[in-house]
């Protein structure tokens, strides 16, 4: 099992902080509302625990999933709980629970994911290319387990970088997860001079 030092995890947490800060700015511009970022976390977890990192695995959510390729492989996952999804759609002027609402969430996910990833790319000098997002409404655990399974062949460990974006005064919150491959983490750390 791979281990990371506190210094390495701190550096990854700082990357998550800057990335989600950028994503928060983009969300704030879209909504015309102030957006707060919760203190981000970077944890190396066994897969079974990683599935639970975003809360109750049976709770429903809409997940927007962006595969990231390039110098590092990673997956960005945004999770919108149903009430928060409805609030967000209302703020955007689209009807929640409709095809239009669904595609608006996909577009938000795309914009936030890209601003997050672009800031990582700028800081580390990596060339990173996000692919078009897929949007699914399902149990949080099923979404995360299916994402994690793709890279679970050779390791039982996942590095989870998560943060929460909170739209102030609206009780609207979404979870933002970056799940890099283990090689991707090594590359990130190498670029930061911490490998």
């Amino acid at each position: 099992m791979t281990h990371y030092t506190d210094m390495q995890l701190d550096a990854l947490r700082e990357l998550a902080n800057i990335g989600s800060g950028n994503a928060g700015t983009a969300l704030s511009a879209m909504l015309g509302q102030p957006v707060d970022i919760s203190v981000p976390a970077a944890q190396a977890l066994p897969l079974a625990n990683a599935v639970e990192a975003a809360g109750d695995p049976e709770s429903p959510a809409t997940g927007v999933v962006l595969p990231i390729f390039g110098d590092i492989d990673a997956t960005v996952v945004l999770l919108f709980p149903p009430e928060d999804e409805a609030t967000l759609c209302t703020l955007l002027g689209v009807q929640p629970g409709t095809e239009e609402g669904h595609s608006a969430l996909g577009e938000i996910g795309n914009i936030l994911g890209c601003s997050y990833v672009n800031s990582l790319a700028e800081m580390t000098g990596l060339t990173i290319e996000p692919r078009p997002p897929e949007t699914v409404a399902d149990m949080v655990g099923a979404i995360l387990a299916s994402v994690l399974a793709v890279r679970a062949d050779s390791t039982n460990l996942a590095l989870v970088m998560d943060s929460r974006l909170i739209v102030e005064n609206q009780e609207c919150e979404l979870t933002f997860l970056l799940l890099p491959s283990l090689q991707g983490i090594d590359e990130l750390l190498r670029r930061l001079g911490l490998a």
Partner: protein
Amino acid sequence: MASVVSGTELMVRMGELATSAVVGEVLVTIGLGSCVGVALVDARRPIVGLAHVMLPESTGDADGHPVAKFADRGVPALAHAVTALGASRLEAVIVGGAQMFSFGGTDGANIGARNEAAVREQLDRLGIPIRAAATGGRKGRTVRVHVQGARVTVREVAGVEQELYGRGTL
């Protein structure tokens, strides 16, 4: 087998397996997406087991991976565990193996289907008949395996619990 007990429900998390012969207990796996839940029950007696398989086969060193992570090791391990509890005539119910996303390349896109195929192959090799299945599709599922009556129920997100299998008697 680090299973967490909550009431009479025993959670079987990704890569884990659990067994029970205690009437009243229920083995539960929440949020199966591409993973497959393999339930083994004794045809006559209240003995059940549940494995939460994540991938078809172990490609390298299996050390450091939970016992039921890979179908090729997990299914035989589960059969062994329920047999050790006294089960003799095994029957299987399988749940999961959905394709929730289309990305992930040629491998990633069909992990669910490959998981199901690998589980079926292992059960066939062990001579264990599959009595019911809720597999494929694009939706996640939660499965519950009740010791009492070998009742197996499935629920999709925001759906109702549906009975997939059961003996109707103890």
